């Protein structure tokens, strides 16, 4: 990315380095949200619908993990994936895959905690009727997840927002390698450290615009679907 261009110029001319950075940021964060949803929604549903010893402690723990510092997660994943770490043989350090792993760990508690709350609230509403219709446990879970889907999507968007905005995890496990593991946030950090403040701010605005666009699309989809389903 040319140092003396403004972010607007880069956007308008479709600067390939900027495009690559945006693409990587979206792929990494969206993938992380996807994996986190696959893990987090059933996990949240499970906690919501089963009673077991220590349930309250688990819920408190889950809620706490929503606030895990990204840089700490990055460090933990780094030590895991380092060649001298337990998973070093996988050779994943300093790759986009490592970034997805770190962000998945970051986002899963958020989605699980919000899913748990959403599903528990709906379960309280649906409990009697589902029992009266002798709905089995598996079908209970799928019914609740389906009927709560809009609130769950909001949970996913919360996760995406967190992932797209963080820099601590991805910079440690990704290494901010030019053209390979550089995302929007790590590029902003880099340009800031080079003193390229106007460009850094411009990139920040581009990032906000992207997250805004994702949220706007999700909202539009939700309104359309709500109209159909009520």
């Amino acid at each position: 990315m040319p140092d003396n261009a403004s972010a607007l110029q880069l956007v308008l001319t479709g600067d390939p380095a900027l495009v690559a950075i945006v693409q990587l940021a979206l792929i990494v964060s969206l993938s992380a949200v996807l994996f986190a949803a696959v893990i987090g929604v059933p996990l949240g549903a499970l906690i919501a619908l089963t009673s077991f010893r220590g349930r309250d402690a688990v819920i408190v723990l889950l809620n706490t993990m929503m606030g895990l510092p990204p840089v700490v997660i990055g460090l933990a994943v780094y030590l895991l994936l380092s060649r001298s770490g337990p998973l070093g043989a996988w050779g994943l350090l300093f790759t986009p895959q490592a970034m997805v792993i770190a962000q998945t760990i970051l986002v899963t508690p958020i989605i699980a905690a919000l899913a748990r709350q959403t599903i528990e609230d709906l379960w309280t509403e649906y409990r009697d009727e589902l029992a009266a219709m002798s709905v089995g446990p598996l079908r209970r879970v799928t019914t609740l997840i389906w009927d709560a889907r809009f609130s769950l999507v909001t949970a996913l968007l919360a996760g995406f927002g967190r992932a797209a905005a963080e820099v601590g995890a991805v910079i440690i496990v990704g290494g901010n390698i030019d053209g390979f593991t550089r995302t929007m946030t790590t590029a902003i950090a880099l340009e800031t450290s080079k003193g390229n403040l106007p460009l850094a701010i411009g990139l920040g605005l581009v990032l906000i615009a992207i997250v805004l666009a994702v949220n706007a699309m999700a909202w539009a989809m939700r309104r359309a679907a709500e109209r159909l389903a009520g």
Partner: protein
Amino acid sequence: MTAGDLPIRFAAVTIEAGTVALLDNVSLALERGAPTVLIGPNGAGKTTLLRAAMGLLAPTRGSITWDGGAQAPPTRRAIVFQRPTMLRRSAVANLRFALAAAGVPRPQHAAATARLLTLVGLEHAAERPARRLSAGEQQRLALARALARDPAVLFLDEPTASLDPASTKAIEDVIRAVSLDGIKVVLATHDLGEARRLAGDVVLLHRGRIVEAAPAATFFGRPGTEEGRKFLAGELLV
């Protein structure tokens, strides 16, 4: 119609919640035939009795049997709660859900939902989000949902409590129709008029106990207990 659920027998059933006895030493039999109507003041135990007979509440003491056996999953029993919860989907989707839960194969859903919607007079509202229906319409949908299970026994907890006369009549017509069709109806109500209109048998509950249980004609003609008399006269029971 086979009835693996009837008769439902309560043998000295007590159901406690904490220190309070919701049902206290209740013995009764719900047999095939005309509707059984439960009446009594608030907190008398009508809802508890309905839930227990449905199989949703276990007795603290005593036993409940369905056709002589211990409770099986309530496939041929259905209940309409006092404030039914609509699933967040369209009216017809609610019915389809109930049909699926009752094990009705998919290809039969279209015919079944059409029949049920017509029965409760909701054909015009089939695709509407169920939560946007009026109170009366929701009650009718809940009734249709219960009937989707092809029940042998239908429990209704004050189904017309908050409805206007027109909706009340609509629901009562359906109840009468299904009862004539052979479904055993067990209905709790506040409305003595409704009790008179629908009851084959009357059970008067007070403070978790059965005060009087008699055929409707007997009870309304000449109540056998002091409380029965008072209740019919509209006096407070203590």
